[in-house]
């Protein structure tokens, strides 16, 4: 864990001004009160481009307090560009403590993954969302899709899954897999793999979603049912590569496939770097452990 620092005096704490943070908190309260409902909010310009997590950053800025410990992941990794720059941003503008350990974090901002380590009560996970509207590709009219949400008129969502099975024999959707939250609203879980969908169900942590460009916030309060849509005869099946991690040997984590040479060589590694590192520290070894590529970098 990095220690707390003094924030850059040129910025208000957390970059956003206090009025903006209050506005976002009001939207968050409404979102928590109506699980899965998309609350419009006055999304601000952030010092990076739309699509890089502006929505998630605004939510994080609004919930971050001085006692918090922030973890930022991108595709499960703590050390990718997006994760590093967002973590550095919050260190600079709020002086918050940061960590790469899931268990130590109180606020986790994520893009495309939920950590492997089960989240606990009093943790907040903030998702970066590119497209908050699960019906967008099915119904082009915003007015109509809002009405469909209002009336829980969701037949169309199943038409999409029907088409998938008709064409491919199974539901091929493997990320951003639509879920029914609290038995009422259909929600886009952001582009996390369907592998992570079951982790959202009845989670003790608070889950917040921010879409900066689309100006929407939504939330799943702790202990809320989150059901992935499916058919009775084609049940939901979380997708995972049929292999195990070549570094730590994990058989139940979500894997990334990495090409390692120009002769068809490849390896599978846990996408959650913190999880994989902890397992290796505990002595777990995969197929390529000890390989030059598998040497653990020292920070």
């Amino acid at each position: 864990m990095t220690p707390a620092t003094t924030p850059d005096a040129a910025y208000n704490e957390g970059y956003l001004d206090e009025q903006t943070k209050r506005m976002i908190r009001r939207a968050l309260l409404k979102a928590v009160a109506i699980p899965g409902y998309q609350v419009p909010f006055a999304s601000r310009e952030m010092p990076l481009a739309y699509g890089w997590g502006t929505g998630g950053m605004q939510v994080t800025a609004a919930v971050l307090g001085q006692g918090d410990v922030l973890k930022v992941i991108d595709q499960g990794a703590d050390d990718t560009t997006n994760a590093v720059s967002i973590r550095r941003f919050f260190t600079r503008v709020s002086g918050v403590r940061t960590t790469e350990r899931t268990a130590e974090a109180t606020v986790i901002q994520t893009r495309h993954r939920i950590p492997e380590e089960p989240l606990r009560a009093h943790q907040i996970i903030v998702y970066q969302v590119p497209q908050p509207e699960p019906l967008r590709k099915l119904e082009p009219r915003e007015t109509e899709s809002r009405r469909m949400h209002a009336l829980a008129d969701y037949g169309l969502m199943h038409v999409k899954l029907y088409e998938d099975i008709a064409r491919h024999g199974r539901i091929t959707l493997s990320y951003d897999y639509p879920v029914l939250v609290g038995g009422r609203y259909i929600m886009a879980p952001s582009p996390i793999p369907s592998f992570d969908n079951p982790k959202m169900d009845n989670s003790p942590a608070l889950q917040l979603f921010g879409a900066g460009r689309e100006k929407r916030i939504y939330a799943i309060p702790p202990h809320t049912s989150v059901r992935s849509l499916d058919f009775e005869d084609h049940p939901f099946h979380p997708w995972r590569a049929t292999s195990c991690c070549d570094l730590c040997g994990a058989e139940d984590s979500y894997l990334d496939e990495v090409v390692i040479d120009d002769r068809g060589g490849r390896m599978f590694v846990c996408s959650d770097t913190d999880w994989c590192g902890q397992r290796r520290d505990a002595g777990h070894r995969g197929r390529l452990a000890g390989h030059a590529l598998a040497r653990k970098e020292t920070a």
Partner: protein
Amino acid sequence: MMAEAPLLEADRVSVSFGRIAAVREASFRLWPGEVLAIVGESGSGKTTLLRALHGEITPDDGRVLYRTAAGETVDLHRLSEPRRRALARTEWGFVHQNPRDGLRMAVSAGGNVGERLMAAGARHWGRIRAEAEGWLARVEIDGGRIDDPPRTFSGGMQQRLQIARVLVTEPRLVLMDEPTGGLDVSVQARLLDLIRSLVGELGIAAIIVTHDLAVARLLADRMLVMQRGEVVESGLTDQVLDDPQHPYSQLLVSSVLQA
């Protein structure tokens, strides 16, 4: 045999768009299993009346009463929107003149037919599929085309698909807006044949808006003649067509070329 209460009753329905009175005090009753044709020239208000009956536009005056499957009589324009939508996807159907308005062109034929079933809560893929296959056969579409999107279909096939999509939940009332418009005569004849046999088989009540008197003659038990937003004549189809009383009905009947 007639049931004792009408299925649908329009009571002095008036719709105006600004200063233009599109429909003036239209009243009629539709009985279960009956087919009613609304005829008239372009601009006579027949489509507007149909849309008011479907709840898409709210009339300025008058009301539309509908007797639900549960036997309750409801005022369509006073129903809450969730209630009206639930009725619209289970008890009614709407067949558009242009199949593009009634179909999802990018979704396969099977998905189009299955949509209403899924909206009504069907969640078993195999059964939805089997139902869609059955309906494609009933509207004479080759079962091998079930996974093709309707944009690859001919106009007549699209229209038949639209009918399958509407009838799959076996609605009690179907509203059709010029169902044979834009089709050539031989395709029209087959489509009319199909509609007549399906409506007869399922005992569905239907309201068909058309400017084609032959369609009315073939399908309808009763008809209304509209001119400039008013119902000028109504009666049994044969009676109106063979012995028109109103000057406009006489003009309409005499304008048709005798083949």
